[in-house]
């Protein structure tokens, strides 16, 4: 096995990924042939495919979640619209878009509009640095890839609080307070748990982090178990950031009707639901890129079984493995949602500030201290 490079540099990226150009998607399909296709055609086709991929997943993943949840609770879930209710989510969306758009009396008009629109724009724009396989389907190949997503998601707490205040309702205001406190508290362990990975790879770009894992093995199995600890903390923080069970304290149906989203209806509610699912999707994607090898189908380093290497870097395999991993995480989210009770707000904040932050700091230091101690090191 080759010596593990201590720091992954941008020049190493060029050596490994000579066939991969994120500037021009799908260009590798026509290399060595006589077919000449202009770049703008390739870019437009990739943009269309990207949009279609996101849209189909948005309409399909909630159905998967509802079906899994129903099976776990001994129900059937949606059955009427389409084959086994597969068109339930599009039907719900059309129904919400056709409903009347209402605003409470005394609501702050601009704040009511801003909280929906800023959150929606930030969520859609945050899909840019995610590479969908080695196809070149990536919105922007930034140097600050992970931090860009992180910065856009940090716009959520103030605008949730503004939306709760602007609705002129006590449930919305209390939910807005809880939402802001929860999101601020769990951003910190989420960032600290990946600092070790960022320092070891020496990069913030999601393509480079994934390629590092293809060469050296997935991070979840490395660093003598501390990779798994950091991944677990990242997963918990991601569930808390997306406000899902067991951390759905802001939209506590029993005491606050629907939290900061109580007064929204019609297309605003449709947009907020879409934001919730894209947020879940992007958080699952970040977990996959950081700890589960990104678009890599196998958890072992690339040099071990050389016969499999062309198979692993094929573009269809990478896209499929990414999608399958994302659906597994959606099923895990449904599992949590159907089985666990809700935390109380003070227990929840104590968990975040007192336990997760010190443990994530320890995991980061352990990653920096012993990068060679891992499962893949014991093999040789």
């Amino acid at each position: 096995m080759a010596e593990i490079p201590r720091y992954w540099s941008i020049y190493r990226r060029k050596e490994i990924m000579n066939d991969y150009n994120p500037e021009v998607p799908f260009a590798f399909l026509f290399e060595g042939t006589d077919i000449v296709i202009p770049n703008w055609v390739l870019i437009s086709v990739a943009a269309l495919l990207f949009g279609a991929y996101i849209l189909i997943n948005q309409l399909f993943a909630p159905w998967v979640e509802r079906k899994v949840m129903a099976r776990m609770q001994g129900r059937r879930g949606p059955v009427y619209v389409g084959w086994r209710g597969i068109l339930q989510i599009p039907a719900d969306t059309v129904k919400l878009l056709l409903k009347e758009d209402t605003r409470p009396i005394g609501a702050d008009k601009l704040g009511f509009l801003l909280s929906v629109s800023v959150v929606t724009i930030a969520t859609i724009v945050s899909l840019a640095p995610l590479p969908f396989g080695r196809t070149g389907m990536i919105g922007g190949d930034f140097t600050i890839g992970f931090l860009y997503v992180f910065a856009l998601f940090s716009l959520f707490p103030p605008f949730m609080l503004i939306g709760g205040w602007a609705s002129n309702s006590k449930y919305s205001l209390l939910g807005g307070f809880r939402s802001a406190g929860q999101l601020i508290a769990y951003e910190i362990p989420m960032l600290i748990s990946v600092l070790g990975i960022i320092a070891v790879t020496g990069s913030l770009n999601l393509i480079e982090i994934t390629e590092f894992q293809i060469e050296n093995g997935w991070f979840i199995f490395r660093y003598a178990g501390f990779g798994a600890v950091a991944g677990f903390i990242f997963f918990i923080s991601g569930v808390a950031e997306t406000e899902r069970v067991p951390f759905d304290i802001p939209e506590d149906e029993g005491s606050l009707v629907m939290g900061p989203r109580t007064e929204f209806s019609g297309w605003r509610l449709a947009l907020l639901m879409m934001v919730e699912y894209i947020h879940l999707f992007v958080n699952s994607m970040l977990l996959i890129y950081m700890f589960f090898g990104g678009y890599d189908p196998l958890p072992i380093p690339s040099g071990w079984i050389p016969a499999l290497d062309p198979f692993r870097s094929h573009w269809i395999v990478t896209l499929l493995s990414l999608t399958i991993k994302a659906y597994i995480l959606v099923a895990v989210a449904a599992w949590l949602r159907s089985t666990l009770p809700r935390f109380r707000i003070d227990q929840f904040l104590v968990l975040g500030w007192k336990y997760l932050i010190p443990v994530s700091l320890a995991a980061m230091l352990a990653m920096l201290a012993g990068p060679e101690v891992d499962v893949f090191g014991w093999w040789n």
Partner: protein
Amino acid sequence: MAFDFTQFIFFFIAVYILLCIVMVLRSEKVMQSAYWLILMLIGVSILFLLANSEILFVFQLSIYSGGIAVLLLFAAVLTEHDELGFDNSLLGFVRATFSQFIIYVIFAANMVFLILNSVLDSAYPQISELADVGRTYAEAWSQITGFATYIWDDMAMVIIVMGLLVLTAILGSVKLAIREEEIEDLSEEVLLRLKGEEVLT
């Protein structure tokens, strides 16, 4: 210097920022000025991006408009919702704050002329690197690593002192803001919860 699209973007953002500041100063409720301030901070972060600094874009967006703004919103919600002391029209605004407005105009014009004159006349090299759109990935990444190296080499003590300052301020403000309850006023259930025992109701 030729007019290119980065200058167009700059003027667009600048007009947006000035509009946000006007709304901050003359909006009716404190909460409204707070959210106009957040919109202004997002505009400033885009200007950082135009000045070739991706990492400061991230800092501005996540710390300023994500963290500090929440503190300001909390301060606005938890205290009194006041109204402005004068009409909500521009005329009323100008009439109520006439003398300050004159001072503002004189001061702003003075400052702009002062800065522009001193910059245009001085020996500053006119090689503006702002909004260099032809920068490659490697150059951008070397800039970020250079910034990190600069911080942890030359500014290391400053960062440590700054961390101590932030820690002191956080502890002090928690001590100041926490409400100390009289123990006799609490109900038995709350007392049991404070001791960490489970309450069965």
